C-alpha cells in the first residue's frame, strides 16, 4: 500500500482526531502499559521515509497516576532452572485470576470476538481497504486495575452503555 507521497499533515490530523475524539482517560490501566498502533509510513518533503506508529501517547498528560505500578518481569537469568523452563514455555503476563476466568472468557466472547467482524467491516467500508483487528485481550487485561472481568470485552470495543456511563458522570 505504501509508495505514494503522503503529507505529514494528514497523519497528524488523524492522530489529533484519534487522541481527542474519544474518552481520554486510561485510569483503568497502568499508565504506560499499553500502546495502540496502526503502522503508517509517511513521506515528507523534507525527510525521507519515516515510519510512525499512531499511538495514544498524547493522552498521558490528562491521566491520573496509576494506583499500582506495572508488574515487573523478573530477569530470566535470576530464575531457578525449573521456573526458567516454565517461563520459556508460557507467554509473559498472560495471567488471569482464577475466579475471573469464566467472566473474562464470556465477556471477551460476547463483547469483543462476536463484534470484531462487524467492526472490521465498518472500518473497511470507511477506508476502502481491509484492516484486521488483532488484540489479545487476555494478555492486555492482566494490566487492568479496578475493573471486573465482565467488562473486558467491551473495554476494547466500546458500547452505547459505556458511552452513556462515561459521559453521564
Amino acid at each position, binding site marked *: 500500500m505504501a*509508495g*505514494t507521497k503522503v503529507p505529514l499533515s494528514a497523519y497528524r490530523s488523524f492522530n489529533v482526531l484519534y487522541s481527542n475524539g*474519544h474518552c481520554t*482517560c486510561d485510569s483503568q490501566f497502568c499508565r504506560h502499559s*499499553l*500502546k*495502540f498502533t496502526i503502522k503508517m509510513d509517511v513521506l515528507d518533503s523534507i525527510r525521507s521515509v519515516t515510519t510512525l506508529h499512531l499511538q495514544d501517547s498524547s493522552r498521558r498528560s490528562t491521566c491520573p497516576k496509576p494506583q499500582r505500578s506495572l508488574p515487573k518481569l523478573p530477569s530470566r537469568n535470576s530464575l531457578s532452572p525449573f521456573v526458567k523452563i516454565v517461563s520459556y514455555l508460557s507467554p509473559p503476563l498472560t495471567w488471569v485470576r482464577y475466579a475471573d476466568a469464566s467472566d473474562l472468557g464470556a465477556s471477551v466472547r460476547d463483547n469483543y470476538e462476536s463484534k470484531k467482524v462487524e467492526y472490521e467491516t465498518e472500518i473497511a467500508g470507511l477506508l476502502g481497504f481491509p484492516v484486521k483487528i488483532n*488484540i489479545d485481550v487476555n494478555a*492486555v487485561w492482566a494490566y487492568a486495575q479496578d475493573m471486573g472481568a465482565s467488562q473486558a470485552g467491551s473495554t476494547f470495543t466500546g458500547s452505547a452503555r459505556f458511552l452513556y456511563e462515561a459521559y453521564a458522570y
Partner: protein
Amino acid sequence: MHTDRCVFRYIDGFISALKSYVDHFGALGKEYFKNAVTKGELTVTVNELGASVHLSSLP
C-alpha cells in the same frame, strides 16, 4: 466525569476518529490514509518497557 467510570474504547474511538477524518478530508484523505498504512492491522499490545521509555521513542 469520574475517572473511575471512564472506559477505554479503543476500537470505537478509532472508528469515531476515522469518521471525522473522512468527513473532513474526503476521498483525498482516504487515499492518503491508504497509502500511508503499511499493515492494515489494529493492535493493542503490552508495552513491556513500561514507564521507563517514552512511547514516541518506540520503533
